[in-house]
């Protein structure tokens, strides 16, 4: 399991899925978020793995 953080929410997610699958499963668009693990940007095709934490960052801004 790996800790996933997005905005003010946190989840424990099994680590056998990719970042892209995680983003899609959360109902988000892969175009709208980036994933950072331990402060480093990670590719959407990377598997979550079972250690550390993954933070999703919204990239959409404006008004």
């Amino acid at each position, binding site marked *: 399991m790996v800790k996933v953080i997005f905005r003010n929410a946190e989840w424990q997610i099994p680590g056998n899925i*990719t970042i892209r699958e995680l983003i899609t499963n959360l109902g988000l*668009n*892969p*175009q*709208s*978020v*980036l994933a*950072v693990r331990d402060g*480093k*940007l*990670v*590719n*959407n*095709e*990377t598997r979550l793995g079972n250690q550390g934490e993954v933070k999703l*960052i*919204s*990239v*959409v*801004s*404006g*008004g």
Partner: protein
Amino acid sequence: MGVHRCRRCTADSVINMRQHRLALCEVHFVEWVENITFSFIKKHHMFEADDRILVAVSGGKDSLSLWRILLKLGFQADGLYIDLGIEAECSYSKRSGEYVEKFAQDIFPNVKLHVLDIADIYGKTIPEMAGRRKGGRKKFCSVCGLVKRHEMNRVARELGYTVVATGHNLDDEAAVLFGNVLHWEAEYLLRQSPVLPADGVGLVKRAKPLARFYERETAAYAIICNIEYIQDECPFSVGATSLRLKEVLNSMENGSPGTKLQFYFSFLRAKEHSLLPGYSRPELRPCEKCGQATGAPGLCAFCRLLEPARAASRRGQD
């Protein structure tokens, strides 16, 4: 599926740009962004090494990334931060200003940063100005944009900058284009461009050197380069039309990589080949009050916005 390798070396890639079929590692992505920005600046004749550039910095990922890139490329680029007075429950303007000042002090301590407070100059914050307008909160983003454009131009003129550079990315531009197409706003369509030349009646040249990049690429650049920026959205942007348009475009992009890129650049090419013949941009003239360029007779939109407050102030003095 395994992790994509960087196209330029054997390292793991950190970003895969499906619209370019290009996956890159940190080092080569940063290099790619800076090289593409330089080419885009040259292609659109945005500015030269001897230009004095005023970069409008908001504390967000795009403008701070732009400032860093321009300085790295060796351009003379000073910053302008406009404090809009958006505090609400999250101290948005105060925190945005802190990110800008930290960037200027920590990363490029020798550059100049101009800080301007709207309430100090005009006696009203942006929420107060927008609140007085018909449409109130719904009009917030248009009032905010109007004031920012006016002030960027005013400061650039007064301090002798030859170009104002903003951090608009391709998603921003595609959303504006989408909105203008939905309403067939011909005059706005003709005006939309990565570079707007100086017009001789008070409008300083404006450039958008990052209009070639998707929003996730400018965010990736900021993260890789350890640029600390405000990640919260403006509290007044909730439900904004531009965000809904971006959502639609991103949904299309996800199913069909390259949709946004093609939409924007096909439009620019069509514009070069006389898109919308019969329409023309309105002739600009100086505003009677502030002297800045306007397409309207008499006062510009900014001075019309401020006129009720000025009139009330005059009545108070009588």
